[in-house]
Every structure is written in C-alpha cells, then in structure tokens.
C-alpha cells in the first residue's frame, strides 16, 4: 500500500513536471488499437480571445498536436500478453504521433481496460471536535478509512474521495473551512492486477518513455463521453472495446463503481471467423462493413461475398446473407450486454436517481446496438461520442477514441486522489527519524 502510494505520487509529480515542460503523450493501450495523442499545454488563456470559446472546463489549456493510431498487437483482454509485440506497437504509435507533433515526448499517461478491475467502497470517520476542517483533516479522514484486504497481487489504480459528510450533513464536495464534530468520507477504490500494471510499465519503459500516470480506461471513457448532468445525476458508461468491455458508474461527478467484462468486439470477430470459416482479417472487414444486430426482411436478400484465396472456386465464391451475419453477431453482443447488466445489477445501479446508460467504444458503432441495448439494459440508452477537444483530428473523434480523449481530460485536470493529500504525521510516528532523513535529502 505504501509503495503504491509512493509510486502514484511519483507519477503525479512526473505529470506535473511534464505539464511544466508543456508536452505530454497520451497512450490508450487497447486490444484492437493503440492510440497515442501528443498534448501541448500552453495555458488556459491562449486561444480564448481568437476563438471566442470559454474555458471548456479547463480543456482549453491544452491542444492535441499529434495523433496516431496503430493496430494493437500482443494485447489480449486489455492486458499486455506479448511484451515485445506490445512494445513495438507502442513504438509505432508514439513515433507517428511524435512525427506529426514534430516534438519529442518523454512522458506518457497510459490507460488500459483489462486487469480485472474491482471496486471497493471505503468509509472513514474522524473526530475534529468542533474545529474547522483543514487539509490535514481531509488527509486524516482518508487515512482512517478501513482498507479491505484486496490481495497482495493487486494494486490500487484509483482511490478517490467521492463524498464527505460533516456530522449529519452529507453530500459535500469540499468540507474544508466548515465547522463540525465528526468528518466522514466515502471513498471509491479501484484495484487491478499488479502484474498487468507492471507489464505495461515495462513496455513503456522499453520505449524510452516515462510513465506519468495510469488510469482505468472505463473511467476515462466515462469522463469524455458522459455529459455533465449525466455525471451528476447518475449514469453508467459502457465502453465496448476490442477485448474487454469497461463499465463505469458515475454519480455526483465521481466514479463510484467500475468493472470490466472480458469480452468485446474481437470476440464478435472471432465468432464471425469461426462461423463463416474466414480469416480474422476478413471477418473484421465483414463485421465493420455489414455488421448489425437487428435483422430485417431486407437483410435476408442482401448477400455478402465473403471471399477467400484457396483457389477452390466453390469456396472462394461463398456468400452469406446479412441476416446470417447478424445471427452470428447478435448472440455475442447480447451476451456482452447481459453480462454488463449483471455487473450493473450487482453494483446497485437501479438505485441511482437517473439510470442513463451511455454506450461508447469501438464496438458501439454496430448499427442497431442502441435498440438491442435498450432491451437489455433499460430504456435510457444512448450512444456516446467523446467530447471534442482542441486539435483532435477528425479521424480520432469517433467513439473508439473516447478512452484516449478522456485520458487527455484526465491529464489536464485530474480528480483528487487519495495520494494527493498528505498522510497525517501522527499515523506513523515510528518513522519520524526516517522522515527527518528524507527531509534532509529533499532539501540538500
């Protein structure tokens, strides 16, 4: 726990250093593609006069100056599977983005979707005896939260205070400066497999880059594709990716739950490949061009050439109707959505005041998906696209990039995490000598 605290803090410092230098890269390590964006930070006031655009909640402080996407390799279920391959794919994306930006980047903020995220709700309480709540009290109350035993092989990826309560008043965003007797907090902690983080970390290190931050892709996709009132009133973002489907539930502008289903668009492609006896590349092409989930009478007559180069005429001239294709795709999509439904039910999503569900990610572009999802997940379903950020190329504005775009927002103004607050000194008095030594090291 302490190690993670330190490493997260080190990453946060590195992120600050990178923002000082003005250039930072965003890396979305997905199962089907790896996207790299290069951001340039040049102050919030830079473009305001000429564009007549407001501050856009702080996003105008940066501009995307390089963007590149490459087919991902060596990644399965949103986790690094073959490190060499992943490293090459990351290099490809980073090099192309650097070339477009014409600037060298040294720091990256990465997100990934897999690693079996698990959410924990924590609460802590501390007595402040009628005083004014200070920064130190916030740190103390978070330190007082009882951390469950989440396993030695797991790391905390996010630990965000989502709610503060002072005596009987709850729902506070920022209790500092207020007077009360007892301060309680609710925290959301997301843990992931430690090995996955380590693999990704080494992949990025092998590309001569420094990791300046890590985020869950479900979380950042939610940041970019949910609009403000959805985040406020309660909503779920379903990020239908290639190898895994991320779920993040937002309430009062905080993520309160995140999970992932280890199925995604690649499994649909695999089903098509197996069902139609075609290579994966062809299956992917057929899925993108003709895919769908709602069959109509017209689809029975629309024949798709599935091709092949075996030299056997009969085999190479095969055709399937679109209805058949939909018949292959739909069960898998349904399975994914059912699984999402199970996860949302387990999280108690139905108790939120608003139950908006936003579908985003590359697989959400299947025609008719919103209709199917409405049947499974509830009536309030919409397709989400990421927020538009400055300088983003048109090619990178689709729903497949909601993770990458969300990561830019995460980089520009991250939420307060546990490690952004100082641990109160009285929690480790035995280490005071160590701290004294550290103070000397830091100052001399």
């Amino acid at each position: 726990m302490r190690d993670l605290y330190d490493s997260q803090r080190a990453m946060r410092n590195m992120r600050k250093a990178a923002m000082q230098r003005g250039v930072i890269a965003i890396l979305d390590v997905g199962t089907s593609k790896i996207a790299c964006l290069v951001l340039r930070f040049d102050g919030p006031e830079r473009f305001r006069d000429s564009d007549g655009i407001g501050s856009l909640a702080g996003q105008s402080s940066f501009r995307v100056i390089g963007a590149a996407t490459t087919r991902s390799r060596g990644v399965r279920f949103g986790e690094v599977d073959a490190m060499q391959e992943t490293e090459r794919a990351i290099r490809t994306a980073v090099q192309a983005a650097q070339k477009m930006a014409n600037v060298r980047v040294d720091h990256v903020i990465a997100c990934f979707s897999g690693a079996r995220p698990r959410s924990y709700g924590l609460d802590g309480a501390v007595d402040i005896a009628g005083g004014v709540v200070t920064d130190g009290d916030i740190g103390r109350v978070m330190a007082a939260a009882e951390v469950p035993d989440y396993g030695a092989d797991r790391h905390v990826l996010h630990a965000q205070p989502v709610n503060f309560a002072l005596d009987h008043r709850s729902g506070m965003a920022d209790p500092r400066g207020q007077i009360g007797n007892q301060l309680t907090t609710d925290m959301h902690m997301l843990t992931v497999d430690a090995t996955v983080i380590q693999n990704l970390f080494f992949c990025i290190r092998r590309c001569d880059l420094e990791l300046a931050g890590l985020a869950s892709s479900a979380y950042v996709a939610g940041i970019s594709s949910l609009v403000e009132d959805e985040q406020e009133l309660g909503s779920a973002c379903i990020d239908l990716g290639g190898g895994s489907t991320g779920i993040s539930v937002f309430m009062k502008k905080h993520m309160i739950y995140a999970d992932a289903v280890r199925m995604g668009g690649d499994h649909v492609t695999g089903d098509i490949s197996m069902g139609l006896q075609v290579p994966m590349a062809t299956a992917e092409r057929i899925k993108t061009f003709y895919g769908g989930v709602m069959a109509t009478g017209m689809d029975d007559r629309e024949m798709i050439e599935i091709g092949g180069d075996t030299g056997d005429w009969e085999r190479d001239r095969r055709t399937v109707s679109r209805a058949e294709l939909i018949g292959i795709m739909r069960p898998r999509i349904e399975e994914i959505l059912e699984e999402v439904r199970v996860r949302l039910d387990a999280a108690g999503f139905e108790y939120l005041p608003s139950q908006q569900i936003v579908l985003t990610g590359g697989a959400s572009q299947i025609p008719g998906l919103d209709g199917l999802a409405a049947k499974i997940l509830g009536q309030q379903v919409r397709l989400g696209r990421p927020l538009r950020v400055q300088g983003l190329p048109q090619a990178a504005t689709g729903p497949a990039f909601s993770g990458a775009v969300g990561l830019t927002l995460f980089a520009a103004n991250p939420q307060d995490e546990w490690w952004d607050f100082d641990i109160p000194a009285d929690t480790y008095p035995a280490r005071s000598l160590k701290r004294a030594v550290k103070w000397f090291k830091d100052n001399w």
Partner: protein
Amino acid sequence: MRPLSAPPRPRAIKDPAPSKWGYRWQRMMLTPGFRIAVRVGTPMILIAVIVGTWTAKPENRALFADHVAQAKAAVQQRPEFMVTDMQVTGADAAIIADVQRVLPVTFPVSSFDLDLEDMRATVAALNAVQEATVRVGEGGALVVEVTPRQPVAIWRAGQTLKLIDANGVFAGVIESRADRRDLPLIAGDGAQTNIDEALALFRAASPIATRVRGLVRMGERRWDMVLDRGQRILLPEEGARAAIDRVIALNDAQDLLKRDVAVVDMRNPARATLRMTTEAANAMRRVSDTGTGE
C-alpha cells in the same frame, strides 16, 4: 498450360513498427539541441576537414598566398591609386631640391606602397625644414607641404657660415657673408644656444648697427661685440644689455667709438675700461711728455 515459373508470392506485410534504433534516432532528431548540432555542426566540421586537408600541403598554401598577392596587386595597381608626381609647396628651390633628393620615389607608384609617415619624418629631418606634411593629393600627386625654417642669424663656425633659426637650430649654409647681409653674425662656441640673447643685444645696438660686425661668444659665458676697425666691446656675463646702452650713451656723448679705442671693456659694470690702439697710446704718451716737458 500452367506457367512454369512460380507466381510471384505476395510479399509479407512489412512490420510497421520502427526498429528500436530507428525509434531512438527519430526521438534524437526531435531533440532541439541535437538537431541544431547536426544541422550546424556537421557542415562546419565538414568544411573544417576539407580546408584542413587542403592546406596541409605546402604547395597549396603557396598557391593560396600567390593568389592573395595577385589579387592585392591587382587592386593596388589600379590607376585610381597610382601616384605620378610630386608637388612640394611652401619652400624655395633649394629646399625643393633637397626634398626631391631625400625622397627617392620612382613614379608612378601605388599609393599603398608609400609610407607617408616615414616620408614625412625624412622631410622633417632636413635642416632647412621646420615642419612637413606629406599626403596623396588629387590627380595622383604626392603633395609635400613644407614649412621652412626662418634663419635669424648667421653663425660662423670655422670657415663656414651657417644659418640658424630662433631656436638655435641649424637651417642652412651660405657661401659668403654677402649672401645674407640682413642677418646678424654670431660666432664662438655656444653662440647658437643663446641666440635670443644675441638678438636682443643686436637690437640694443641698433644705433650703431652700421658699425657692428657681429657677436662673439667668449668662453661660452659672455659676449663680445665686434665692430669694424677691429674695435671690440667686451660685455659682462649679466647685464650685457645695460652695458651696451651705456656704451651707446658714451658714444653719443663723446663719440667714443670714433676715437682710437681698441677695446671697450664693460665686464666690470662699475668701471668701464678702455684700451686704446698702440698708435693712440704712443701719441698720447708723446703729448703728455710734451705737456709735462713744457
């Protein structure tokens, strides 16, 4: 029939990933400092190497020096820079001849080859020249402006008559006294260093100027004024002017100098002493003998 040669195999899709070193190279090239070093440093090193290798051979260096000299000469020998004659101004013919003698310049010559300061020093070193300016004037003329020395007296040293100016500096030679009757004559060792005093004495003696032959410096400390008929006025070391005045006053009163006086010794200001010529002394002796004899 099937073609015997195998159909061209479709090439395997090239790995789009850059090699590790290619990636590093690209990142290096995006580093501003390194880029500048490559863009500026490489050509400079290349040029330095080429120049260094070329100049390492002595014949190349000689060739280069030769080219430089030729180019220099081509510029210097242009007609705009050529000097064709010499004009000496502010001097008489004798000095002009002297100047032309000490400046052995063969015309035409490039003005770059003339050392004007050296020439000025040479001209100014001439006795008759007080100051000189040398410049290259219009129309390719070497203009030498000379201020000649003004002789104020003639100094007899042995058999030669030298002209000296107010500072006692030698300013020329004359053949005979008759050449410069307007200048007073001085003689004796150390005479030229006390020229002011001598001139003042000459001015004081202006009432008897027609009779004055010159001044002789005696023992490098005092003057004798030599008159015609071999008369001498011996002047004291100090108060010579007053002594002259006294002699002139005596002359006015008693025609002293018209008499048979050989020497008027004024060295003792309290007592002027006369020495008569031998004949006068004898005559006087006879007269007194006669007078006493009667």
